[in-house]
């Protein structure tokens, strides 16, 4: 899906290889909305990396008495305290790391699987293609959240399982995009010629196809990161997260569980949520601009 919005970069023919990251970033920066996205992402990255160093979170630093629980913001605790009397500001910073890491790693898995499937299907064609596409379509039909819930419920709540589950449920879209691009590339003259010269499949894939496919999925990847972060937050909120480590999702889970909503503890509910919104928004804005830049003519199949 291409999104055309005010201030969007005017379309221009895409060179066969948009090799340089810097060039792409510059293009994104020029776009008004893309710029906002990049700023948000940079901001989040800084907060996630630097925040816990400057303001480390000690989960054992609990309150002394019942009066320390769910306290509103004060000079001592800028964002108040949670249900064990711990500092919400610091745990928000800490939670950023896990939320982002899970999102990124899950996406990496998703891209690797999706691209592999897409390339294999598009390149080999025939039975492989049909089989892989049936599997892909099957996974596309399965409702995502119920699937993730069922998998997490069956296989456990560790961070590793979460990452795997999220990653293994979001690859179909990548597979489809990759496949269609591979299909169109396949027919191009230079591929046919190279093949007739006797180059092996692997070589062809590596040298000619990957380079053309990667920029394409780049935009889609960014959207998948956003989706993965949301997925982790949702799973954690529903109680399927790792209870030992702090993430934005688990913070919201404990907030809900300890009655923060009814208590009016907005300081516990807003920060993790706002964090999620900012990160996801950043990826979405940047992702859409990327999509616009890299695939100006592409229509959804």
């Amino acid at each position, binding site marked *: 899906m291409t999104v055309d*919005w005010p201030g969007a970069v005017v379309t221009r023919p895409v060179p066969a290889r948009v090799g340089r990251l810097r060039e792409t970033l510059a293009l994104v920066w020029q776009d008004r909305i893309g710029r906002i996205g990049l700023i948000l992402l940079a901001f989040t990255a800084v907060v996630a990396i630097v925040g816990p160093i400057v303001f480390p979170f000690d989960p054992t630093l609990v309150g002394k008495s019942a009066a320390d629980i769910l306290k509103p913001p004060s000079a001592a605790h800028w964002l108040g305290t949670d249900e064990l009397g711990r500092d919400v500001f610091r745990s928000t910073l800490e939670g950023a790391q896990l939320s982002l890491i899970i999102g990124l790693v899950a996406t990496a898995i998703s891209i690797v699987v999706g691209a592999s499937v897409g390339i294999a299907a598009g390149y080999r064609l025939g039975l492989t293609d049909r089989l892989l596409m049936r599997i892909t379509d099957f996974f596309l039909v399965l409702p995502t959240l119920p699937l993730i819930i069922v998998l997490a419920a069956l296989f456990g709540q560790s961070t590793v399982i979460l990452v795997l589950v999220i990653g293994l449920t979001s690859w179909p879209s990548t597979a489809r995009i990759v496949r269609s691009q591979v299909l169109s590339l396949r027919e191009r003259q230079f591929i046919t010629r190279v093949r007739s010269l006797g180059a092996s499949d692997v070589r062809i894939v590596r040298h000619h196809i990957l380079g053309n496919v990667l920029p394409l999925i780049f935009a889609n990847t960014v959207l998948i990161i956003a989706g993965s972060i949301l997925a982790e937050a949702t799973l954690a909120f529903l109680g399927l997260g790792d209870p030992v480590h702090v993430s934005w999702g688990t913070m919201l889970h404990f907030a809900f569980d300890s009655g923060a909503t009814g208590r009016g503890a907005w300081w516990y509910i807003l920060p993790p949520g706002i964090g999620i919104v900012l990160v996801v928004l950043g990826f979405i804005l940047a992702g859409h601009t990327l999509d616009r830049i890299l695939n100006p003519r592409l229509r959804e199949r």
Partner: protein
Amino acid sequence: MFRIGYLARKLAIGALTLLAVATFNFILFRVLPGNPIQLQARAGNLSAEAVARLRELYGLDQPITTQYLIYLRDVFTGQFGTSITFQRPVADILAERLLNTLILLAAATILVVLLGIGLGIVAAARRGSRVDSATVVAALVFWSLPTFWTGLILVFVFGVYLHMLPVSGVSTPGLGLTSPIASFVDLVRHLILPTITLALVDIGQFVLITRSSLVDVLTEDYILTAKAKGLSRRQVVLRHGVRNALLPVVTTTALYVGLTIGGAIQVETVFSWPGMGRLMYDAVLRRDYPILEASFFIFAVVVVVANLVSDLLYQVLDPRVREA
């Protein structure tokens, strides 16, 4: 309309998909090591009688293929087993809850379609203006909101702070309302916040889709021709643009029902809406695997049906398209 052959083919594919889902479920819940049935059977503190009952019920000492066939037979005759928590047939529990979820999905779909498409049209018509910018930015922000968090905020504002709207359940208990109008009003009041929450995220998506497909259409030649003929901008947009842009929007709407299941689960949890989504949440808390299995299957059915409807609508609206 459309050829029977086409319809039959689509139905067959739908049925096959459901079969695949059932098989998938079977593998997850009955075959993989550490699956719930195994766990139950090896719990170590079950009476011999209970173990025998399990064996009989699930055919545990039969070959895998027999178990598979038994499983399929059960699923397609609606026998989803007994809930561990409620000790009642899962099918009964599902039946009670499904309607509530459908009501919520229907209300949200209406809201999303009306607002999403409406705003999308406005934005497309005023492409490039500040209204357009604002709408798009708002749409993108909405798209980034986690559904459950939005729900929490709304509960907070409208329930805790303002006391304006009910924040849980489907009806106010014990009112003893006899008039159907009063009951309906009560239902609507309870429906407001959950529907808004569920719709908000997707309104964003719809605005963007509508806008972009409308924008594409608006630049096509025959539109330019219409303009050249002197039709007012409004006429151009409405008469030619919308009708042609309607296609992707309508089919997306049908797909929407399937896409919004995840949101429904979150909304039902936050607002205590007694539907299938909350049932799934409660089942996860208690690891009630029969319910989890069955809800997953039913949700898959909903998606398959929605996709089918979408495909058929596509056929109806655009008879130029033939299945390749």
